């Protein structure tokens, strides 16, 4: 039962990363793929009506975490305090940039908000990448289940670690490149004209860059957490994740080389899903690994809520999930199709 809830919590977070990841990527690339003010508005129009419902999944993740694993949430939200606030501020800044930029038709005004937009998307990709690195590496959880971290300590991965060290920074770089590639793949599907053509080239080079970075991170993970692959070999989800990675990498590759945009985008989505699912399966049942002492690590079984809460969650969670999926289908269909510089099909952004 706890294992199912662990899968549910991971699932909501993975869906969020995949959905909003394409906005981070497209946002980061706005500088590079859009040369004129019209094209910059086009990039924003490609994600403008959609990013709010992507954030529904982040809220869903937080809510599920609070309902199912309250002790984990209490410990990690306090421990990651400043990092979480940075993420929140970047999300607010990005939202404000999207909403406010188009209101005044002035070069300086729009340029300023576009700058904020690109910067906050970069920071979000870095922060979420570093957060993923922290989950994989572990945090200095003490015997009471508390931890607090500085941004940097000695840049090492054992003992009293900081938020950033060589391992989490390398994962943050991987996250930036991979989400940029994901965003470029999305923009080839969603945009037309010069932005589409530039994104096609960017997508190819960025996905090529992902391969060595991913290899480096895998080797590093083996060094940082030598205990990990052992348990994962007996976890069916880990194997399913590997199959998803293989299948989606193939889909992405054939989609990119043959210019079939939807195929490439589907592959790109599931590649990220597969990678994150494999990671989530590999660390199970430990949700927060302690770098101080292994016995301080918080497992899903130890931090789960009581049976009463889980029972209530089993009733309410599917209802919320059904609503979120309905919202997902509705908005995707409503805003389907390409955005162009000439036709404003996506509302006023």
């Amino acid at each position, binding site marked *: 039962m706890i294992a199912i809830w662990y899968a549910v919590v991971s699932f909501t977070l993975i869906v969020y990363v995949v959905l909003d990841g394409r906005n981070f990527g497209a946002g980061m690339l706005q500088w590079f793929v859009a040369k004129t*003010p*019209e094209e910059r*508005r*086009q990039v924003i*129009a490609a994600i403008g009506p959609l990013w709010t419902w992507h954030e529904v999944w982040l809220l869903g993740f937080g809510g599920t975490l609070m309902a199912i694993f309250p002790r984990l949430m*209490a410990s990690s*939200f*306090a*421990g990651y*305090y*400043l990092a979480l*606030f940075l993420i929140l*501020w970047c999300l*607010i800044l990005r939202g*404000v940039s999207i909403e*406010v930029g*188009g*209101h*005044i*038709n002035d070069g300086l005004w729009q340029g300023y908000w576009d700058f904020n937009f690109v910067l906050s998307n970069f920071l979000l990709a870095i922060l979420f990448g570093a957060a993923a690195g922290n989950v994989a590496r572990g945090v200095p959880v003490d015997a009471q289940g*508390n*931890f*607090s971290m500085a941004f940097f300590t000695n840049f090492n991965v054992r003992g009293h670690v900081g938020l950033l060290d060589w391992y989490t920074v390398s994962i943050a770089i991987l996250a930036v490149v991979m989400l940029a590639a994901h965003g470029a793949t999305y923009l080839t599907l969603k945009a037309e004209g010069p932005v589409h053509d530039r994104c096609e080239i960017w997508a190819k080079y960025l996905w090529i860059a992902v391969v060595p970075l991913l290899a480096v991170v895998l080797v590093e993970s083996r060094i940082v957490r030598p205990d990990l692959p052992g348990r994962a070999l007996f976890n069916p989800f880990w194997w399913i994740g590997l199959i998803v990675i293989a299948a989606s990498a193939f889909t992405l590759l054939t989609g990119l080389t043959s210019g079939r945009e939807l195929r490439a985008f589907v592959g790109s989505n599931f590649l990220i899903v597969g990678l994150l699912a494999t990671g989530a399966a590999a660390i199970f049942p430990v949700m927060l690994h302690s770098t101080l002492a292994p016995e301080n690590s918080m497992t899903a079984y130890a931090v789960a809520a009581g049976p009463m809460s889980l029972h209530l969650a089993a009733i309410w969670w599917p209802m919320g999930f059904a609503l979120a999926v309905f919202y997902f289908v509705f908005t995707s269909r409503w805003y389907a199709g390409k955005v162009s*510089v*000439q*036709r*404003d099909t996506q509302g*006023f952004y």
Partner: protein
Amino acid sequence: MGVATLQNLRGRLESSRLLLWVLLLAFPYPYIANTLGWMTAELGRQPWLIYGLFHTRDGYSKVVSNGDAIFTLIGFTGLYFVIGLLFLGLTGREIAEGPEEETSLVVDQREAVLV
């Protein structure tokens, strides 16, 4: 509100001057009601976080320092101040421009992307 709905149903809302003034001046009340409602709920529940179950003094994070809390409070104050200014500025601009003329509803589609 009731009177306004009645007048609207009778098709006379736009011609009742006094009522329109009352409605215009009533615009802050939803904000005030919303804020005061929150404050009543949050302050009225003290010293409990969850009424009857959990004290506020037991509920704070021990690993978050005063400095962290003050830093984020200042950050939020600044952020909301800027967003508030943006709201006032942009809303003021819209109001100053006045309602659109009927003819301008046919917008040049190229311009619509820019707006």
